[in-house]
């Protein structure tokens, strides 16, 4: 091809038949950010009496952290798919719309469920496509998902509700298959499905079947688990190889022309969490621990957004850093291979039967042994530690010996997966 090139900053005549325009939204964003920054600077000057001047890069980084900590704001006029992807857009939607409207002390922690006295309450909706996939279907996913949310509160799951939105024309045989696997999953988890609801919408208004479950569990320990309870030095544990559910769904959709022997990891985790909590309580006979929290600081199931999203939420809530060791993170070879091919980081891929546990350093071994003694935790591993600086940041020591930041995801790495 040619090597003669000229470059101009303005278009050539005839090149842009439609003339010029401005991106108004961008100009507005620039103006608003400048105004906000000026206000913050004025406040800082008033407070300190002078302008605090660290290095220019540090100033910029401070400015960015302020912008990140600022109140969540939605710029879009319409809901987009990004709002459901579990990353930054989802957080913004939840904080700017739902929390803003419903604000109360039980909701504010934004945990997997709400703890009310000795009860835990949670709800979850399931819109997975395809409805049936290797290792499970929307039915057991809907039961396990809610059972796990209760388990992550430290509760014993007791009763579930199930709401169905069905599309006109959906085969009854498929519905029976789904309810059969829900029944089996409920039996395995020791819960009853005690109430429900059914709606049918016109053909084309839903993808066959959507399910919403809610669940109630009972708490049998005094110390609350909380994403705010993590302290520097705590160990970060995953209960098994990550990303299997998300990658299974992605491959099952058949859009990628990739094949791998993968099955979803969907499983109820209540028994695993019960063993973990009791093992750590038993090991807790030494010096008294901080009164507010036990040795197990926090449990989270790593669903939408994967382990990376959960850890970012914990790091922010507890204002700690979390440093991960890439070599220690268990990943099935087929998941790793598919992630390499697709350019996806397994840390962001959803699991439906894996959890993250943050445990006091002196209980890490007891916790790990308890998890590994259970079939669902046989490949559990300590993948990192909490530190004090930089607060709110998740870092990864790469296999290659470098370091990088593991931030909340902005876009959607995957199609709908739960």
């Amino acid at each position: 091809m040619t090597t003669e090139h000229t470059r101009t900053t303005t278009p050539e005549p005839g090149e842009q038949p439609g003339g010029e325009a401005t991106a108004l939204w961008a100009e507005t964003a620039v103006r608003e950010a400048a105004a906000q920054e000026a206000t913050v600077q004025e406040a800082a000057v008033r407070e300190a009496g002078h302008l605090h001047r660290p290095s220019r890069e540090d100033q910029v980084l401070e400015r960015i952290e302020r912008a990140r900590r600022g109140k969540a704001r939605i710029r879009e006029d319409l809901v987009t798919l990004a709002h459901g992807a579990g990353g930054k857009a989802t957080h913004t939607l939840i904080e700017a719309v739902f929390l803003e409207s419903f604000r109360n002390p039980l909701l504010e922690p934004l945990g997997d469920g709400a703890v009310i006295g000795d009860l835990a309450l949670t709800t979850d909706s399931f819109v997975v496509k395809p409805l049936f996939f290797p290792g499970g279907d929307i039915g057991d996913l809907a039961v396990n998902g809610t059972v796990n949310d209760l388990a992550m509160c430290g509760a014993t799951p007791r009763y579930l509700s199930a709401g169905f939105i069905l599309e006109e024309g959906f085969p009854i045989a498929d519905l029976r298959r789904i309810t059969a696997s829900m029944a089996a999953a409920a039996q395995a988890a020791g819960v009853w499905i005690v109430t429900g609801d059914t709606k049918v919408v016109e053909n084309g208004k839903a993808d066959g079947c959507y399910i919403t479950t809610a669940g109630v569990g009972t708490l049998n320990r005094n110390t609350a688990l909380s994403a705010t309870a993590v302290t520097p030095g705590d160990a970060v544990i995953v209960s098994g190889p990550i990303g299997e559910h998300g990658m299974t769904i992605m491959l099952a959709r058949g859009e990628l022309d990739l094949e791998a022997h993968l099955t979803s990891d969907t499983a109820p985790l209540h028994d695993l969490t019960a063993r973990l909590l009791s093992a750590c309580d038993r090991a807790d006979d030494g010096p008294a621990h901080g009164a507010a929290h036990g040795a197990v600081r926090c449990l989270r199931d790593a669903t939408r957004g994967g382990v990376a999203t959960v850890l970012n939420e914990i790091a922010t809530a507890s204002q700690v850093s979390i440093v991960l060791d890439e070599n220690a993170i268990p990943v099935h070879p087929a998941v790793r291979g598919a992630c390499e091919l697709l350019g996806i980081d397994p840390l962001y891929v959803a699991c439906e039967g894996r959890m993250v546990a943050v445990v006091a350093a002196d209980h890490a071994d007891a916790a790990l042994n308890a998890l590994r003694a259970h079939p669902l935790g046989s490949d559990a591993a300590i993948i990192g530690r909490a530190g004090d600086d930089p607060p709110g940041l998740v870092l990864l020591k790469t296999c290659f010996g470098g370091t990088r930041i593991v931030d909340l995801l902005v876009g959607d790495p995957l199609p709908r997966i739960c």
Partner: protein
Amino acid sequence: MRFVDEYRDAGQARALAAQMAALCRPGRAYKLMEVCGGHTHTIYKHGLEDYLPDAVTLIHGPGCPVCVIPMGRLDDAIHIAEQPDVIMTSFGDMMRVPGGRGSFLDAKARGADIRMVYSPLDALKIARQNPRKRVVFMAIGFETTAPSTAMTVLRAETEGIHNFSVFCNHVTIIPAIKAILDSPDLHLDGFIGPGHVSAVIGCRPYEFIAHTYGKPLVVTGFEPLDVLRAVYQILTQLAEGRSQVENQYARVVPWNGNAKALNVISRVMELRPYFEWRGLGSISHSALKMTEKYAAYDAERIFQIPGVRVADPKACQCGEVLKGVLKPWECKVFGTACTPETPIGTCMVSSEGACAAYYNFGRFSRERVKEATRR
């Protein structure tokens, strides 16, 4: 994945780090540009900067195909997507890119039928399955992806599929590099040449960079050791006072390129007189359009596109960042008005863009990060 592990050995990386440090002349700073967004991704994913001597700075170049599409072109694509009976198809990383009036995702929320595909052949499949719809493929990318777009058009012709067309935004890498080399405020010492693009065009087209502009260029692959070896080879050339084009990626890149792929491109596409690049301005002969012969598959001719140029806001300094004059954090709007969630400039748009990569993976000063990971 053994073939990958071979290029991810931390021991070899440490050895290279020591050799690179020995090649740096005391007191001299080295600014090298990795042209390709794929390299930027590798650098951050594996934390390669930890192995580089302090004197070496990597500048992230214009080689992210998503980032270089100007806002006006995206508005044109959305206009096409909003026409009756149209299914617009696009790679996933294009979905969030904002134009003058929002992104594909926003247009989809307003009701346009925009679908994510993984290759142009997927788009052709959708055309086959929906004979009453007009299926348009939003074609983006350098010489890397242009052959598969061209192949798909040829396939559509052979199969007699008439409801498929391409909105062609393919760009060519050499004019962009030349535009950067010609800018008066340039401060670059050498280039890490793109791997996938070179597998198509070969290494010869870069020779003017070494001969006319006196800058070393090393073509390399996307594994972490590939990138470190390329930096080592550039530093070696600089230490020896040489400027040559070297091929570190001979396992994939033939010196003369892939004649078959180039031939397929030229059967279906030809150079445009001008094309606007986000952040770089209008560059002559820097992009491809469909030829007259394939007008029936050219969305630009089938649909009346508005063709409105949308200027980036003045506060946005992407051009300077792309040329290596400014670091991402030195831009006035970096991290406040312009973030990965609401990108304003080209460099923040895709995760391979220089600013997005810095924001996601390198936002904290190296000292603080090193201190945190040491404990």
